[in-house]
């Protein structure tokens, strides 16, 4: 059940109508059942994996909290992590590793009589696995206390708005909202509706239309420099629109129900360096990797070389998290190298990169090219294909008539994203200006703000309706 399908819209409206008429205890039951139904629409068999994960982590969490012996606590933590990662490894990575081992064996002339299992990847497995692990790890480190009711914990693991593509929530944030009384407010509803609208706009108008340019560039046999360049840029906006769109819809839906999810994207293409980028892109994953992998590995506390090694390991595993393929490992490696180079440069010059200043647009533009090369690695069908793109670009950038039309189409898709991001990035200065204006004209600002929201919303809805792609394409991050 995709967010961008009518089935989901109907499903959500039905759940929402019932939700509004229930008290909190029944609301939680409703959300749990709805989450299981939502997941069953993909494949009911894989629901069992979620239930296993839920049971294991629920009892491991309780075990850690109730036992006094540090050794036993550690054992409970290990059980939880091993079961979750075991499920993840079998269902996501088994075939990949096996096929690579078989390849290595074949190089030595050996032909072992084993073959890959052709296991289907359960949707959203990486997201709920990480969420469940964070719960057990937080109890172990004393940051959280175990959930008393199994139902509430099950809802935390399977909460349908963020079940299949995040944001990856923490027990300290989401679980509290499930257990404690929550109240709806107009502010939440307005915010939620605005986020849902933005999310659908990013997905249906930007990402899905950009995918047509991308698919063409990455499947054509006559790759020219112009097609290659436009294809890479289009993919940068496709993946952003797709994933940020999903996250915003998820956050918006949660707001409409009185929940608040973490922000997953903060204008990532306005980043000026790799560190800045990872503070803006898929924030819930990067902070998860920082807290549960980089810091336990030693972080930056064990000397420079160890810091860089930790960075590389974290980014490599972050890449592998995205999928069982060499291109994702390479993508992780690429970002790891970029981060190490950045740290080396800042450590060497002892001057951290300023976040403002007149050079900022230039830095943004330069770093955007670095990000786009990463996306090229991410999107290519094979490692061999990666080099065809720079090769085509270096061979000459002559734009044919159709390429200009594609460029024009791409600009139509990109300009609204840039405007939305700039508005978000500079929300505080704009608000300050607005407040100053408010002081002199007390009645006007409300009208101005309402009109601005209304007009923007109307424009977005018109574009979604008239130009939105109706293929109902899957979200890219569902496969992770």
């Amino acid at each position, binding site marked *: *059940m995709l967010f961008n*399908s*009518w*089935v989901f819209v*109907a*499903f959500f*409206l039905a759940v*929402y*109508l019932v939700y*509004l*008429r229930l008290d909190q205890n029944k609301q939680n039951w409703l959300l749990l059942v709805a989450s299981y139904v939502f997941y*069953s*629409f993909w494949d009911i068999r894989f629901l069992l994996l979620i239930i296993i994960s839920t049971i294991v982590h629920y009892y491991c969490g309780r075990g850690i909290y109730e036992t006094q012996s540090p050794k036993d606590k550690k054992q409970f933590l290990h059980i939880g992590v091993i079961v979750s990662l075991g499920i993840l490894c079998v269902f996501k990575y088994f075939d990949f590793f096996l096929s690579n081992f078989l390849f290595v064996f074949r190089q030595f002339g050996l032909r072992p009589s084993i073959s890959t299992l052709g296991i289907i990847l359960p949707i959203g497995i990486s997201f709920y696995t990480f969420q469940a692990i964070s719960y057990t790890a937080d109890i172990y480190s004393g940051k959280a206390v175990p959930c008393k009711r199994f139902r509430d914990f099950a809802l935390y693991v399977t909460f349908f708005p963020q079940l299949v593509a995040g944001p990856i929530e923490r027990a300290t944030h989401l679980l509290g909202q499930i257990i404690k*009384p929550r*109240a*709806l*407010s*107009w502010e939440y*509803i307005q915010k939620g509706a605005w986020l849902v609208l933005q999310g659908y706009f990013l997905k249906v108008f930007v990402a*899905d*239309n950009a995918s*047509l340019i991308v*698919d*063409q560039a990455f*499947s054509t046999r006559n790759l020219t420099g112009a097609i290659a360049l436009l294809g890479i840029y289009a993919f940068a906006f496709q993946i952003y629109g797709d994933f940020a769109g999903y996250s915003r819809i998820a956050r918006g839906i949660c707001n409409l129900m*009185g929940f608040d999810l973490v922000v997953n994207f903060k204008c990532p293409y306005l980043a000026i360096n790799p560190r800045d980028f990872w503070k803006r892109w898929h924030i819930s994953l990067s902070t998860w990797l920082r807290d549960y992998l980089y810091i336990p590995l030693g972080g930056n506390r064990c000397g420079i070389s160890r810091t860089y090694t930790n960075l590389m390991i974290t980014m490599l595993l972050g890449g592998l998290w995205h999928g069982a393929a060499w291109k994702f490992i390479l993508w992780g490696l690429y970002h790891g190298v970029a981060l190490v180079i950045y740290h080396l440069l800042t450590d060497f010059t002892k001057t951290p990169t300023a976040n403002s200043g007149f050079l900022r647009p230039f830095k943004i533009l330069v770093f955007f090219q670095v990000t786009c090369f990463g996306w090229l690695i991410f999107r290519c069908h094979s490692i061999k294909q990666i080099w065809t793109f720079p090769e085509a670009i270096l061979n000459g950038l002559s734009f044919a008539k159709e390429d200009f*039309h594609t460029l*024009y*189409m791409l600009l*139509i*898709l990109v300009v609204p994203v840039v405007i939305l991001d700039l508005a978000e990035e500079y929300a505080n200065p704009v608000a300050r200006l607005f407040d100053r204006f408010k002081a002199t004209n007390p009645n006007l600002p409300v009208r101005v703000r309402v009109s601005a929201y209304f007009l923007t919303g109307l424009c977005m809805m018109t*574009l979604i*309706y*008239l*130009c*939105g*792609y*109706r*293929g109902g394409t899957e979200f890219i991050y569902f496969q992770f």
Partner: protein
Amino acid sequence: MSRSNNSSTIEQTKGDLKLRKTLFWYVVAFVIGVFLISHCSASRYIYDLNGKASISSKTALTRPLRFGSYGFYLARYPTRQLDRTTVILLGNSVYQDCHIVDRMQRLAENEKTGIDFLNLAQTGSGIYDHLIQFTKVLGYKPNLVVVSVLNRAFSTGVGNNILPKFRTDNDQISFEPDILSKLPMSFYWREFSANDAFDSILSTVFPAKRLDWLIRRDIDHFVARRVTKFPAWFRAKFSLPKLNLVADWREKSRISPVLSDEEESAYPETEQLLKEMLDMAKRHGLPVLFIRQESGPRFDTPDVISLIENTVSSYDNAFVTDLKSFYLAKDMPDHVHPEGDHARNKYALRHYKVVISTLKNLSLLTLSPKAVNPAVWDGKPQPPKR
């Protein structure tokens, strides 16, 4: 302090309850509004099959679109005349776009056979679409239904595109009450996932869902007619993206993997689908004629003619004719569609003769036809097999 906290919580809860109640009614009103608008738009766009609607076009389009499940309703098909022999033709773009059925009708009128050919063909239809269309036309109570198919109607590949089973979105009308009551439940269990079933049910409850692309196209035409201040070249060059429209489905550059003939294999459910169609025909006492169309080597696979013949043999009033061998490269440059009047005349005549022959077999032809001019007859097709 705690007392004031408690009272604020109570106030908040009261406010929350009030807000939830208000919101509940807003959402209910929204759903009812969408439902009403949806049915209003459906009534504005859709002709009833066999209805008495006006002949004027209900859309801004220059000609009725006949693509997608609502394509089935968007053309105003002639009304069934009870005193005349009615033959319904289900087929693909050859029947829909090449004026074959018009020619067949002219032949019937020239010969005064009293036959009405109702052309309900839809471009791109496959066997799944034909099954749904077949169920829908049972309400017409025709004398004969002709199902004209290419080999490719039995596989997901056509014209080097990989298409869904329901190529012309006929799954969107599968849960309409008349179809639901006629198609066996086994079909639904076999062909629909929960998601697809809900999607289809939504299309029935909110018909605007499947009219969506057509309404958008009309809005697009409406805007284009009014935005005339800019020069034509500017409007053509700087239009809004229309990548989403169904027409582009066929016009956009090929991005699906190219299929080779070796990869073409028939749906594993082909026999079941044919049986389900014939079972319905049997129950309604409706004769069916399958025609394998003339087509070139590009459409050689999957060859299911023997399977059709075997299935058809179980029902006395079902017939099959193979016209594939009447393909002529010069008449059909793209291996399917006859080009030019001469080729189309010959094509129509062949199909017409097969239909006449079938009607004769069924003793449904009350008026004997005059002899057809042999000058336009390029060969004698095999008479339909029982």
